């Protein structure tokens, strides 16, 4: 028999420490992982969609720029085409959403002969100024939304739609 026999007490305390340590680590490690995870995520290349529109061809006059992307609606994936009204104000590119803030129709630049230099919504005669500001007395309650824009290799890229940030 060897001299360093493990006593019953020692054996039990080692066992409990071992099992307990394992259990504790299985609790703590995921927590650490989740806490650190956001820092490990690679920043995606954002959700910009590059359009066919050359930035050099833009003028002060708003034009309609179409772009398509895939949309997943539950089990159904479809190609959606959307528009933006784009123009230049000085060096800045302004891209406005064509969706009327009243009930969601599509607005047209100079859509009514009676109101030049304005966006016009044919549904309920809503009107907006060139910067998207809604004209009081017409149904819309807020200015047209605006796209975040970028220039990529000379082409216009449209990002997120945000509440209008040029109307103050």
């Amino acid at each position, binding site marked *: 028999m060897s001299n360093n026999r493990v006593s019953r007490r020692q054996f039990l305390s080692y066992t409990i420490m071992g099992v307990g340590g394992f259990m504790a680590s299985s609790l703590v490690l995921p927590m650490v992982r989740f806490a650190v995870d956001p820092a490990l995520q690679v920043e995606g290349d954002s959700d910009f969609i590059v359009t066919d529109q050359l930035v050099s061809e833009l003028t002060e006059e708003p034009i309609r720029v179409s772009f*398509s992307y895939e949309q997943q609606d539950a089990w159904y994936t479809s190609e959606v085409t959307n528009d933006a009204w784009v123009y230049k104000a000085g060096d800045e590119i302004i891209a406005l959403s064509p969706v009327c803030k009243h009930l969601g*129709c599509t607005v047209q630049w100079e859509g009514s002969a009676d109101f030049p230099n304005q966006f016009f919504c*044919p549904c309920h005669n809503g009107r907006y100024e060139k910067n998207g500001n809604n004209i009081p007395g017409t*149904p819309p309650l807020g200015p047209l939304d605006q796209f975040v824009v970028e220039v990529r290799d000379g082409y216009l890229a449209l990002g997120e739609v945000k509440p209008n940030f040029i109307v103050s």
Partner: protein
Amino acid sequence: MLFAGREINQYIEQKEYIDTAVVPLIELDLGAGGIRQSSAAAEYMISLTSLLERQFKGRLLLLPPVSYPKNSDRAEIGSAIRKELESSGIKHVFYMTSDVKWRSEEDLDRLLWLPAVPVEHMDPKFRQSVMEDQLRQVLPLVLEAWNASS
């Protein structure tokens, strides 16, 4: 508006503004001779009416396509839909179809008959521009009805 759960609440709340309905009428022909044309026409009509809906979302309720077998009595279908829509209080109803047999129905006053354009083999960009051209034929008719009533 679409005739769908998430949009219908807005329709109910804003009923005073949404005074127009669009009813796509689609013929179902599953016979060997007609199935290709029937399905292509259905695809055309569904994409045209959804473009129209997007344009006029705030004033127009797009109903799901009414599909009927090729030998159905058009007059009966037409009058049943008309009655249902009349009871809803909707002022303007547009029936849109590529089915020739509706042309003889006098009962529906705003029936837009559009010959189906075969778009299934076009690439997406070209198809989009063709459909927008088609849409431009319909927009003035809707605007005209609205202007006449206001």
